[in-house]
């Protein structure tokens, strides 16, 4: 049983399970699936200053979502720590070869140690990948009004044209980094 739970989950199981979260949240409390709003709730709770965008009742609007996100931390602990899969991820040979050619050498966990480490935080590369990357995730998600969960999953499932535009944007940005920026900074 333990060994089974350590196994990676194939896409055809994981996809439907993630999709089910949309109706579950709607049925539990009429809530719409979307993770990035939490970043706004954190700002509203901790440093609202006099910024209009953060003047709202964050507990009433976002309390449920902050509890939900706390759950994903626990889920990560159970699946990625207690029941961690000791094997490296079964990546495509093509990606593996391309990343090796760019100088990535650690393929053991979820992120390459070459890029994501406290020691790399002192380099320009580390700052771009971790600090600026994080900043853009937060800024972009709020500007676009949602992230992968809110737009790519819930929005597209509800036939929202706005979400289609956002997802096109997600890919424009992702391809720019992958093909134009990474070859320079890696």
């Amino acid at each position, binding site marked *: 049983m333990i060994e089974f739970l350590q196994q990676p989950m194939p896409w055809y199981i994981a996809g439907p399970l993630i999709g089910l979260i949309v109706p579950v949240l709607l049925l539990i409390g009429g809530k719409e699936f979307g*993770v990035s709003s939490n970043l706004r709730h954190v700002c509203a709770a901790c440093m609202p200053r006099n910024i209009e965008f953060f003047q709202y009742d964050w507990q009433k609007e976002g309390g449920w979502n902050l509890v939900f996100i706390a759950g994903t931390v626990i889920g990560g602990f159970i699946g990625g720590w207690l029941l961690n899969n000791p094997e490296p991820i079964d990546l495509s040979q093509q990606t593996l070869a391309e990343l090796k050619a760019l100088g990535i050498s650690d393929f053991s966990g979820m992120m390459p140690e070459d890029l994501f480490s406290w020691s790399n935080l002192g380099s320009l590369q580390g700052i771009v990948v971790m600090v600026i990357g994080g900043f853009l995730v937060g800024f972009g998600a709020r500007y676009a009004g949602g992230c992968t969960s809110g737009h790519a999953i819930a929005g597209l499932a509800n036939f929202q044209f706005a979400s289609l535009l956002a997802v096109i944007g997600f890919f424009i940005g992702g391809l720019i980094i992958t093909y134009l920026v990474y070859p320079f900074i890696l």
Partner: protein
Amino acid sequence: MNTYLKYLSTGIFFGFVLVKSEVISWFRIQEMFRFDAFHMYGVIGLAIVVAMISISLIRKLKLKDSENKLITIQPKDPSQITRYLAGGTLFGLGWALTGACPGPLFTLAGAGYEIILVPIVGAVIGTWTYGIVRSNIKH
């Protein structure tokens, strides 16, 4: 069951699936943007299909939530084209750099990757900055 406990357990379930399907992996995101494997497209694609079927069933059966209110979903304003394209592109830049979108950021922290706290703080500052400049940028 206590309402918060319901949200907590749904979150635990989500986080567990995110780890086990390796969606939280920087490598998997690279594989997706390089179009080298079907994995991420399969996960997101099937999630959309299941959510789509569920939403139409909820509408058709006029289902109510646990507080007995009719379930409705707010439509997004499709006229704000700049907002979705420009905001989406900025998000995509960050997604490919960190290899994580907001859900996986938190799940990675739970899975023991404490370095992810740096991108998380970055994301909070990014969100806060958006709040400041919001009225000055085109939507």
